């Protein structure tokens, strides 16, 4: 239970950890754009993206194995789409065919590029969650969404809801562990039995957990009232986000990547 969803953050001191979270989000967006701008007929563009990823991993100080673990989650999707593409893509240089199935040179290249794109995408975004605390992420999102305040979109409230939700994930997961242990001590069995029995076995966990969540929500609401929380008006921040020299370097790396990929697309777009 300890490693659910946002237990991803990998504490370390590194260049990437110290970047402004807003820049990291923008960089990720730029990176995704670059991945899909890269020509899908050859590997030059993606090679540039992969190079930036390797740089980022080195400067994040997150163990390589940990970064690669992110791919494991989408491995099935990766293999499945690659296989379909290899068999159905079609093309001129046919290696093998059976009925409508054809394995071609073009198909293999296409599916390899697609798989590579997915892998780069997943690893790079996981790098963001590895090097940024959830709190910093919500802060950054709030700051990036500020322009929406003009159309009266409740940016601050949204960010608050997000950070409360994030804060509660470890609390509730701990609570789940405790309740699960308590019921286990009373002989509850979560491993054996058919699917229906297994689902039913979770009732003694779910009900106390729900009650706990409501109780905590009530308490939090009271605590916020008691400290006169009034929403976004005139609130200042404890931690102000500021750009530093690191962010300028990262900005230029990102800009160079996009320009590079665009240039590759224009001048090196020829198929292999």
């Amino acid at each position, binding site marked *: 239970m300890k490693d659910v969803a946002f237990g991803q953050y990998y504490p370390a001191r590194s260049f990437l950890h110290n970047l402004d979270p807003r820049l990291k989000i923008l960089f990720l967006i730029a990176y995704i754009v670059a991945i899909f701008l890269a020509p899908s007929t050859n590997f030059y563009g993606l090679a540039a993206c992969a190079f930036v990823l390797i740089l980022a991993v080195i400067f994040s100080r997150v163990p390589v194995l940990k970064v690669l673990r992110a791919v494991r989650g989408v491995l099935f999707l990766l293999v499945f789409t690659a296989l379909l593409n290899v068999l159905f893509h079609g093309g001129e240089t046919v290696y093998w065919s059976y009925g409508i199935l054809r394995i071609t040179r073009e198909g293999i290249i296409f599916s390899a590029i697609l798989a590579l794109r997915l892998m780069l995408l997943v690893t790079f975004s996981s790098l963001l969650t590895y090097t940024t605390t959830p709190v910093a992420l919500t802060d950054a999102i709030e700051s990036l969404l500020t322009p929406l305040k003009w159309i009266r979109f409740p940016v601050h409230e949204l960010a608050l809801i997000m950070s409360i939700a994030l804060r509660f994930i470890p609390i509730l997961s701990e609570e789940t562990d*405790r309740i699960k242990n308590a019921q286990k001590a*009373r002989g509850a069995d979560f491993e054996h039995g058919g699917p229906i029995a297994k689902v039913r076995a979770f009732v003694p966990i779910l009900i106390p957990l729900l009650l706990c969540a409501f109780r905590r929500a009530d308490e939090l609401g009271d605590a916020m009232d008691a400290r006169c929380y009034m929403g976004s008006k005139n609130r200042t921040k404890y931690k102000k986000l500021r750009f530093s020299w690191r962010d300028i370097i990262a900005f230029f790396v990102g800009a160079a990547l996009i320009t590079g990929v665009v240039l590759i697309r224009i001048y090196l777009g020829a198929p292999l």
Partner: protein
Amino acid sequence: MRIVAEHLSYIYNARTPFAAKALDDVSLTIEEGEFYGIIGQTGSGKSTFVQHLNGLLRLPSSLKRKKKKKGKGVSPVLRVGEFDLSEKKTDFRALRKHVGMVFQYPEYQLFAETVEKDVAFGLLNFAEKGKKPSDEEVKRAVWEALEAVGLDPKEYAEKSPFELSGGQKRRVAIAGVIVTKPEILVLDEPAAGLDPLGKREVMDLLHKFHGDWCKTVVIVSHDMDEIAENCTRAAVFSEGKVVKEAPPKELFRETEELSSLGLDIPLVAKLCEALKERGVKIECDFTEDGFINAVLGRAALRGKEGQA
């Protein structure tokens, strides 16, 4: 059932940056029939230790240990009665039937529509396959357990556990554990969050169970008065280690060490200390009754001397 632990260690989140050593080479023996206390500050490893007793936390399996043994050091041992908890094949459900565990704030584990159903939960879980107890048997056992925790079954059995008061909920939760008559009853801070009267009531309950219902009672607490008043023996945990183990009578004689560990001292021990500084030596076992008797005995002696 005797509890024997030797060289027990436990690390949370091992091999991650969040790794935290909770137990460090703990060796303890708890004899059958004891009312055992486990004392320590928050984070001293006391809860981690008791969660080993019914297999909720496991020690490395014997196979792994053998491999390790070649390398270095001693291998951990944990036996509860005839159960060897370092063996992977051990039937942990059978073990849990014998070792009942009441967690901190047990009232938050209640879930069923009625008190009766909730208390019966453990009973039905531990029933052997094919030998489901009849409704009659279940009802009898549940009513007995409710009576034992001081709730009138006629009044409470059909109620929803969520409409009871905090103290009553806790009683129901305790009933849900003792209903299977475990030989060893482990309680993690059983009196936490209760008012002084409620605390005393819970401890009185435990004394009632001790002996008839459960041969051995183990309580985890940081309330020294509770330990001094109730326990036959107690172990002091600090930073994952057992730093002292003795009957309360000896444990609270030297109070400096406990204070240096950031632990409180029972009120009675404080009184004895204060009296000693003023030249009055009181020998007692640090229970309230023991103290009162010792003081009265002394007063009586003085009175006689005065008459003579």
